[in-house]
């Protein structure tokens, strides 16, 4: 078995796990954990196709991963800032209590 289908299966499972976390967790920060897992799965796909796919002299795959990591970091920073702001209002990170953005 070539490594490419194995890697794609791994990243599919990781993506599904992240999606499951996003759908079932109640703590907002743990939902962010699920989103990071999904980002990571997408990055594994890019690296897999760069390494085992057709020749990629322009380094499109690694380039995509670099930009995806930068954007994931930005997303996490803004997301956590919003979560902390909500926490100051409601003293909770439970989604069932964070049902209003209006302070």
């Amino acid at each position, binding site marked *: 078995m070539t490594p490419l289908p194995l890697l794609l299966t791994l990243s*599919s499972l990781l993506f599904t796990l992240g999606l499951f976390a996003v759908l079932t967790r109640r703590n907002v920060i743990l939902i962010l954990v699920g989103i990071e897992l999904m980002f990571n799965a997408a990055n594994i796909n890019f690296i897999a196709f760069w390494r085992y796919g057709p020749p990629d002299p322009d380094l499109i795959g690694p380039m995509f991963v670099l930009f995806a990591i930068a954007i994931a970091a930005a997303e996490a920073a803004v997301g956590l800032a*919003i979560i902390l702001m909500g926490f100051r209002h409601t003293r909770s990170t439970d989604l069932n209590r964070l049902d209003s953005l209006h302070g």
Partner: protein
Amino acid sequence: MTALLILSPLILLAALGAVWLARPVHAALLLALTLVLTAVYYLAIGADFIGLVQLMVYVGAVAMLIVFSLLITRSGDEAEEIARRPLVMVVGLACTLPVLLVLLHSISRAGNLPPGAAESPAFSLAQLGTALFTTHAPAVLTVAVLLTAVMIGAALFARGAHASSVHRDASCVTEFSSAPRHASCLTESTRKPPTPNDS
């Protein structure tokens, strides 16, 4: 290939723990472990720079940010995560299993993928830098603008929340002294002020 065979079960186990464990801090640390193992895999197949960036940015910044946020917002409702409602689990599985099946089906059908004989060699940093600052220079500039905006935005969020909460407390006090019309003001004024050591 051996690196993949060794690392992929570990990555999956760590991700499963990050999704399933009830305690938030454990879940966040297992997310960090997942990202570390992925970075190790990148290092093993020759994407050195990507692996190091993953280690520094994902593990060093994002995962630690998540852990610190969990510690800041730590409250008494950790036990609520343990009491998972079966309905939520059923709905979550019903939404994720089709996605997984579609992904696996499309992978199994893609039989005409090019063979792994033409594996890309490890790239040099000079190659990466040249591509980054010539071909992808507009994207680099865009990301720079994005990161600046994010930095300013996060700082404004952090400061603005504090200022607005002080302002709201003041308005609640004045309104409360004249006529307590707003229930939110009542709950706000009776709410226990946060002490530094409540955990």
